């Protein structure tokens, strides 16, 4: 049934419908209503789960890790400082091959203190071995949470996943969400029964010390798992479509890209706004498209290579900036299509940091700019959008 709810409630219901068994979470703006909703669902008995009140995010993840090791389906949610405080144990979860699902309400890092949307927190976890899904609507948040469990718990994956929603812009926006029936979700997502888990009566040490002569082989297996995740994402989405009728375009959603001359790459809420912009520019006759970066890990290598073969220019919008380089999406996309026969003109737009609004007007100007850039490539291929004191005006 469709009902109007926030992204955070969509997250909470996603976890609930997935029948998370152990939930350990610590409050942080703007994630709190996820935790509050889940606390309520557990207290009313609507969700049969253990809710562990932890004293930090590090402990939230650590509790999920241990619970997962003994075979429980686990869930947590956080944001910004909470996510970065988990950094060490995020790596632990992937190294231990535990299919934990986390919602990260992506928010800026301090200082300056800021509670607003920014992808820095999520991007800084790109090396931790987690799958990363950037969502563009509350519906997608809910659906992706359910799919994430199915993807991650499959035997050849067994890796954790992060479902990312933009701070406030999704987390606190109410919009219609079709809430699946519990029965339908139950038949789509079987209960968690990992091949390898710690059981009483079966003495084993889980996560031992490994000498230099053997460590790499374990990492190699994780690499293979991330490879397998790619196929798994596509298959699970297909199955999801069959049952629930919704789909999200795989790892890189191509929106009106087929005959596009230039495309914008964007992730999260910006990508939703960008679809409107693409439509309106198309009406004006511009051949533009949107490549929505939905899955950042595993990186959609093949998809970008296919895209590169079709378009003349790619504008990459990063809602984060890696100091000393550029936006992370920009670097990685260029890296991915480096040896493609056709090399589209690529330009990076840094926008929306610390919650700066990304308006349709701004996106239109980016489309204008990339079309120009294709024609006469300039020196600078990284531009900061809407920074006071720079000559270009964006409003």
């Amino acid at each position, binding site marked *: 049934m469709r009902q109007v709810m926030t992204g955070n409630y969509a997250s909470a219901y996603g976890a609930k419908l997935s029948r998370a*068994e*152990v939930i*350990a979470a610590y409050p942080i703006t703007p994630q709190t209503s996820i935790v509050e909703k889940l606390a309520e669902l557990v207290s009313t008995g609507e969700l*049969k*789960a*253990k809710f*562990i*009140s*932890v*004293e*930090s995010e*590090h*402990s*939230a993840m*650590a*509790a*999920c*890790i*241990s*619970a*997962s*090791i*003994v*075979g*429980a389906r*686990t869930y947590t949610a956080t944001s910004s400082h909470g996510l970065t405080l988990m950094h*060490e*144990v995020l790596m*632990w979860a992937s190294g231990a091959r535990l299919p934990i699902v986390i919602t990260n309400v992506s928010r800026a890092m301090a200082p300056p203190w800021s509670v607003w949307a920014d992808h820095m927190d999520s991007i800084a976890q790109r090396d931790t071995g987690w799958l990363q899904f950037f969502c563009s609507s509350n519906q997608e948040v809910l659906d992706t949470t359910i799919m994430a469990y199915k993807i991650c718990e499959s035997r050849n994956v067994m890796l954790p996943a992060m479902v990312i929603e933009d701070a406030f812009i999704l987390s606190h926006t109410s919009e219609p969400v079709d809430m699946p029936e519990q029965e339908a979700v139950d038949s789509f997502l079987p209960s968690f029964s990992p091949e390898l888990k*710690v*059981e*009483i*009566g*079966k*003495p*084993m*040490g*889980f*996560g*031992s*010390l*490994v*000498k230099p002569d*053997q460590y790499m082989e374990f990492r190699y297996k994780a690499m293979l798992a991330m490879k397998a995740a790619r196929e798994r994402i596509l298959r699970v989405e297909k199955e999801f479509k069959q049952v629930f009728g919704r789909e999200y375009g795989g790892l890189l959603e191509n929106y009106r890209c087929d005959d596009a001359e230039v495309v914008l790459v964007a992730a999260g809420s910006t990508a939703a706004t960008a679809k409107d912009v693409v439509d309106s520019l198309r009406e004006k006759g511009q051949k533009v498209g949107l490549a929505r970066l939905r899955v950042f890990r595993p990186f959609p290598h093949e998809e970008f290579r296919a895209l590169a073969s079709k378009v003349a220019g790619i504008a990459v919008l990063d809602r984060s900036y890696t100091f000393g380089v550029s936006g992370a999406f920009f670097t990685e996309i260029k890296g991915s299509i480096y040896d493609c026969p056709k090399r589209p003109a690529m330009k990076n737009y840094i926008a929306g940091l610390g919650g700066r609004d990304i308006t349709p007007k701004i996106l239109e100007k980016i489309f204008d700019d990339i079309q120009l850039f294709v024609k006469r490539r300039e020196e600078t291929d990284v531009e900061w959008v809407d920074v006071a004191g720079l000559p270009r005006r964006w409003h």
Partner: protein
Amino acid sequence: MPKMTIPEEEHTYPGSTGCPGCGANLVMRYLLKGLGERTIISIPACCWAVMPGYWPSNCLKVPLVYSAFEATGASISGLRAALDMKGVEDVTVVGFAGDGGTVDIGLQSLSGAAERQTDAIYVMYDNEAYMNTGIQRSGSTPWGAWTTTTPVGKNHDFKQEQKKDIMAIMQAHRVPYTATVSVAHPEDFIKKVAKAKAIKGMKFIHALSPCPPGWKANPMYTIEIARLAVDTHVFPLYEIENGKVHVTRKGKGLPVSDYLKLQGRFAHLTPAEVSSIQSAVEANWAILLEKDDSGT
């Protein structure tokens, strides 16, 4: 007829990779004798993360989950929650950490586990320094001790701070049961562990665990040193059940120097420093006796 004073069944294998004479090895051995096989243990970074041996070696006959150094308290809460969800209730969940992993980097998650009343036993084996990394000071290193980060320099330095009183800190958390145990008194040790197992909620066991290399002691004196810790009242044996203190062994009241002199880490102390330790120990012992409810 001779009789064993502790359970015969072993839940540890020989071949652990701890040092010869390691007290921590005994702590684990006695602990598991007290708890039996329906036990699951979480171990953070510490000597005991190394002692099971390199993969795939394991010296425990019960399941063992490794956790991040600072996360033992969170780990046992996670284990307990998951087991509860699975309906597995007859299993004792144990957090087993060194002193550094308990009183320093692990204190917060331990405190959290206590506040949320995790049904588990937390055992701190106290070798009074970071031993796995090579004898650096911890919050549990006693005043006066040498470690590599409290060097005995020109200015006659050594650890300048008091040992953190983790028993008092846990008592302040109003957990239902806390006890000190010693490897020199396995019968007392095992009795307390069995008692802890039967109580619901968070239990805390503080085990003094002599470490020959870290204490600069001859490995053969591990038990002797532990015994002297009790007999000099440096490490009194007692338990606190729902706030009631019970001294389980009065000890001989020997001079602390008997205890200190077997350990190279105290070798630099002047007689005056030793006697200041003596006074502190006596004062603490007097306070403990005053609280002792055993008689009443």
